[in-house]
């Protein structure tokens, strides 16, 4: 997994609460048993006037020329709620979105972000709203400093759990990390099979 630290570029405002993973990638857009080939389905219900003809909806934020190269999304609370589909994160990354700034995230979506190197930056709602007003400007995110600098002028800080920050910055594979605990896992399992023998199939 690629390590995450500095992210620079345009931030697009999609300041809406409870943007669910069905909106991020509708079920019909998950066409293959694959983590790739999903970016065309990103926000398909909003991005196109018609999902079959793919006629562009010019009013959708990512279709507007000033936001077409966005690498950051600014959104309201509970972004990524609903279905557990990790395809939402894969589609965002493949499209080019590297960070999402929101007051809160759906909990499974948040985990999926960390496991794939998409930065979920949390801050209070009023600060996100201030950033929305600056959304045409160049944003620079530093994960190590937990700051977002707008147009090289003012900075705000964001929250992220320390361990998630470490995983993102190091780009470590969580499975490899867990496998360093193999002995502890085996010991735990043996003890559990003794105390709860009915759980062994």
């Amino acid at each position, binding site marked *: 997994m690629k390590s995450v630290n500095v992210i620079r570029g345009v931030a697009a405002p999609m300041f809406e609460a409870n943007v669910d993973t*069905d909106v991020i990638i509708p079920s019909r857009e998950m066409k293959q048993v694959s983590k790739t080939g999903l970016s065309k389905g990103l926000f398909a219900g909003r991005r196109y006037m018609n999902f079959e003809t793919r006629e562009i909806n010019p009013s959708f934020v990512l279709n507007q020329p000033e936001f077409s190269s966005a690498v950051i999304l600014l959104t309201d609370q509970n972004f990524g709620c609903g279905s557990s*589909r990790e395809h939402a994160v894969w589609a965002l990354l493949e499209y080019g979105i590297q960070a999402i700034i929101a007051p*809160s995230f759906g909990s499974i979506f948040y985990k999926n972000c960390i496991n794939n190197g998409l930065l979920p930056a949390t801050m209070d709602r009023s600060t996100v709203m201030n950033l929305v007003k600056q959304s045409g400007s160049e944003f620079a995110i530093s994960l190590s400093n937990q700051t977002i600098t707008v147009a090289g002028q003012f900075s705000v800080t964001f929250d992220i759990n320390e361990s998630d920050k470490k995983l993102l910055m190091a780009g470590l594979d969580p499975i490899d990390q*867990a496998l360093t605990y193999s002995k502890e896992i085996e010991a735990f*399992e043996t003890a559990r099979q003794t105390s*709860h*023998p009915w759980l062994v199939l």
Partner: protein
Amino acid sequence: MPKTLFDKLWDAHVVGDLGDGNALLYIDRIFLHERTGSVALKSLEEGGRKVRFPAHVFGVMDHIVDTQIGRTDTTQMPSGKQFISAMRSGCNWAGIRLFDINDPDQGIVHVISPEKGIVLPGLSLVCPDSHTCSQGAFGALAWGIGSSEAEHALATNTLRAAKPKALRITINGDTDNNVTAKDIILAVIAKIGTNGAAGYAIEFTGSAVDAMDMEARMTLCNMAVELSAFTAIIAPDATTVSYLKNKEYAPKGAMWEQAKADWKTLKSDPSALFSQTIEINASDIKTMVSWGTSPEQSVTATSRVPTPQSKDDEQALIYMDLVPEIRLSDIKIDAAFIGSCTNGRLSDLRAAAAILKNNHIKENITAICVPGSMAVKMAAEAEGLDKIFTEAGFEWRLPGCSMCFYAGGESFGPNARVISTTNRNFENRQGPGTRTHIASPATVAASAINGKICGPNELETGR
């Protein structure tokens, strides 16, 4: 120190404290389905890794499979077959018990896991499906994960997780006639919002919960994710034990006695502290129906669509093609759906059938019932429920997730207004442009007969 049930379940699974606010939790059972499980198995194999404990992993075809009688691997969604084939070969590669399309035990994951006794009190169970919280109804630590986490659990039998806070929702009192667990959970979501339990694990308690059968408890826990909760749990009791007795994967003989003794300890200590508590009076709750595109946008069936309070409300009204202050009882529907992991179990079909008996749905309405599993279907047919449904004008189908969402390509079509026993009324959830009102099975049945949204107590029939 006194502990909540959630503390007990959590502590019993901690392999190690990672020292950074996260624990490494042991995972006892993993369930996979063809939509998100297939990609996890494929990625695991491609990464040169193995399923660590295949006997504790189960797979099922439920998300994309067709529900038409005589179905094959071909689905209405052109690429669906790929997921089905990949799931089958992945389970074969890993040596996992798969409930395949025509298996007599096939069904929706959260319906068949309890039916088979795969979920048990006190164990941890994960599935790359957000409604895994349904299975917390058994006093299990069950929660929904992503595909990468599924790979992690398959390869290591562990997951890294930060402990959520504990929220107790106490529901006391008697419910009115025809007010169900679905109405209660919709009322809770409408009250505290879809973000209302973010960062929490919910424990449902109270006399109304004690009085529920296991199926109603699953409906209650099923929609915890619609509150953004990590999961929900209910302490196991005599109802839980009697449900699980003699189930295929449940312990038998001396082991059963040993397990039962252990399960008695699975309850919150009387003085355990919760970070937050909410009290609900069950007798205040009426039949609920959603009007918008989020489950929190729900009101009582006899009330009106509210005046929008936010841009999100306005957008929801546009999508739903509704105007403020219209009575729900004046909203005409085009279709009715009964099924899903929320309300596709035998008691749900019985509740709907009780309304449908000797009645017929309104002309021009398309109505479909998809039993939650083969076992539910067979039990319903043994009672003659299938005849009640078909004589009332419903189509009677084979088990699967079906029209809960559009994964398999099954839909009532653009602009169709559907009253549905499912869990999500999101934009396009049931297909492009389809408008969803979520409600209980009895309400869906009553509305299908009435042609407009209608609670079961408001239905006037010629009976």
